[in-house]
């Protein structure tokens, strides 16, 4: 089974986003960028499937600027077999990303796509399920545990009430949640080896996908701030303050 993992290069999760003064967006110049943490989990899962023999080939795809190649190399160092880089300097919407991914899935005849449940920058949480619908495939979102056997896959999902298990007939799309696995770090020899792995260079035009955005960003502003309050001396003072506020 061929597995495809889409990865996104995002503002590192440790960096606090700063809104640009002209309200056009978030300032991404000279800040640390990393692989979306959920995508690290997806890559780890795909590599484990290869190691277990359930996956025959694991392909990593990123759609983004030239620097997205670094993100692909990181995934190759962890153990993905080869990469596909779709070059664009535009910030594409999940709808367009999903359309490009659909074309790649069909060209590669992949049987499983493992995507992140959300990208921590734009937080749309849409790409994986959109792709599943476009392919008319079933989906297992917010995956906590996955298990493949024959032509099906069992996915335990993190839902609001606890955990839910579904059984999907392959091919399918899975989106990863935080507890699926603990991603490994790439080892130096593997980083060196990854430099020799191939990355196909593509553009959105190669797939004939119309990427015109459907949402226009009118403005991006700072959220309403919250300022520090008071430090109370002890529990009695805390209780008295909360009583005064009328919340207890």
């Amino acid at each position, binding site marked *: 089974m061929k597995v495809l993992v889409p990865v996104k290069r995002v503002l590192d*999760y440790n960096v606090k986003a700063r809104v640009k003064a002209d309200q056009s967006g978030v300032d991404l110049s000279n800040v640390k960028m990393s692989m979306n943490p959920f995508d690290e989990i997806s890559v780890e899962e795909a590599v484990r499937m290869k190691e277990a023999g359930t996956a025959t080939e694991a392909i990593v795809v990123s759609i983004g600027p030239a620097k997205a190649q670094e993100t692909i190399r990181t995934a190759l160092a962890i153990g993905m077999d080869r990469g596909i880089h779709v070059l664009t300097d535009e910030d594409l919407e999940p*709808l367009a990303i999903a359309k490009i991914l659909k074309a790649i899935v069909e060209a590669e005849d992949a049987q499983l796509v493992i995507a992140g449940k959300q990208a921590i*920058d734009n937080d749309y949480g849409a790409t994986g399920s959109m792709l599943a619908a476009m392919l008319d495939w079933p989906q297992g979102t917010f995956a906590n545990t996955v298990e493949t056997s024959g032509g099906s896959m069992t996915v335990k999902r993190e839902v609001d009430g606890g955990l*839910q298990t579904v059984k999907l007939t392959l091919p399918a799309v899975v989106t990863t949640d935080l507890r699926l696995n603990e991603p490994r770090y790439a080892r130096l020899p593997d980083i060196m080896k990854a430099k020799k792995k191939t990355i196909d260079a593509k553009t959105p035009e190669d797939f004939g996908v119309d990427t015109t955005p459907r949402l226009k960003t009118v403005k991006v502003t700072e959220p309403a701030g919250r300022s520090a309050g008071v430090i109370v001396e002890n529990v009695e003072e805390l209780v008295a303050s909360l009583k005064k506020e009328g919340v207890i």
Partner: protein
Amino acid sequence: MAILVVAEHDNTDLKDATHKTVTAAKQMGGDVDILVAGKNIKDVMAQAAKIDGVRHILGVDHDSLTRQLAEAMQAVIVPLMSEYDAVIAPDTTAHKNYMPRVAAKLDVMQISSITGVESADTFIRPIYAGNAMATVKSSDAKKVITVRTTAFDAAGEGGSADDKMLDAPAAPTTSQFVSEELTKSDRPELAAAKIVVSGGRGVGSAENFAIIESLADKLGAAVGASRAAVDAGYVPNDYQVGQTGKSVAPELYIAIGISGAIQHLAGMKDSKIIVAINKDEDAPIFQVADYGLVADLFKAVPELDAAL
């Protein structure tokens, strides 16, 4: 304009998230209908009919909808959209699961987790863990929207919408429900509770969480947690508050042994009063707390419990 709200329910009770979503729908203007898709949903439909300002309640009752799996929900909603300009649902896991599928089938871009409605096509949504607020205008003919329910008041009751049952479409066969392990609790629901008491890595173990739970019970509160506490197995996954867990905005949020990472703050910084108990006076949580207590939680929490 006609707007379809998808109800949040468990086949027995209609959840408050539905009332909040109705408020967002009303702010867009136009006729608001509610879809109840599930199994044996008569009671839920009756509860939905009472929401103020709703036109019709649509019911789809079928075995395949018992768990509202994504593939089945898509099959119900997509054909209905020929009659509607927008479909809108709470951003809980149930709806986050299928709404992007509906959007993809309609070839429109979903507008996720809105916190404000500017007009029928322009919405406000948090990005970057709530560190920026984007105002986006949609050019799509039909809108697919999920709502951050903590940002909207619940619509009132006193309505008397009529109802009609619709036929269920053919059930998809590629996805099947196997089982579920739901967290059992007599406490209020985390997302809707007036008071939330959350514990973090500082609590140290699943056994120690008993002091958090005892305080919560004293206050009639829900129990929440940081990701670190969930990852360490102190509490189940559905306790996680934050950017990638649940968003809460209670009257009172008490963070105990939680440092205040941006991902955690994203899920609770809209709470009315925030209390932090942490032994590290430099913990970032104190920068958003209305009341901070620098103390060892193993001493302070039992003391607080006893003082209430």
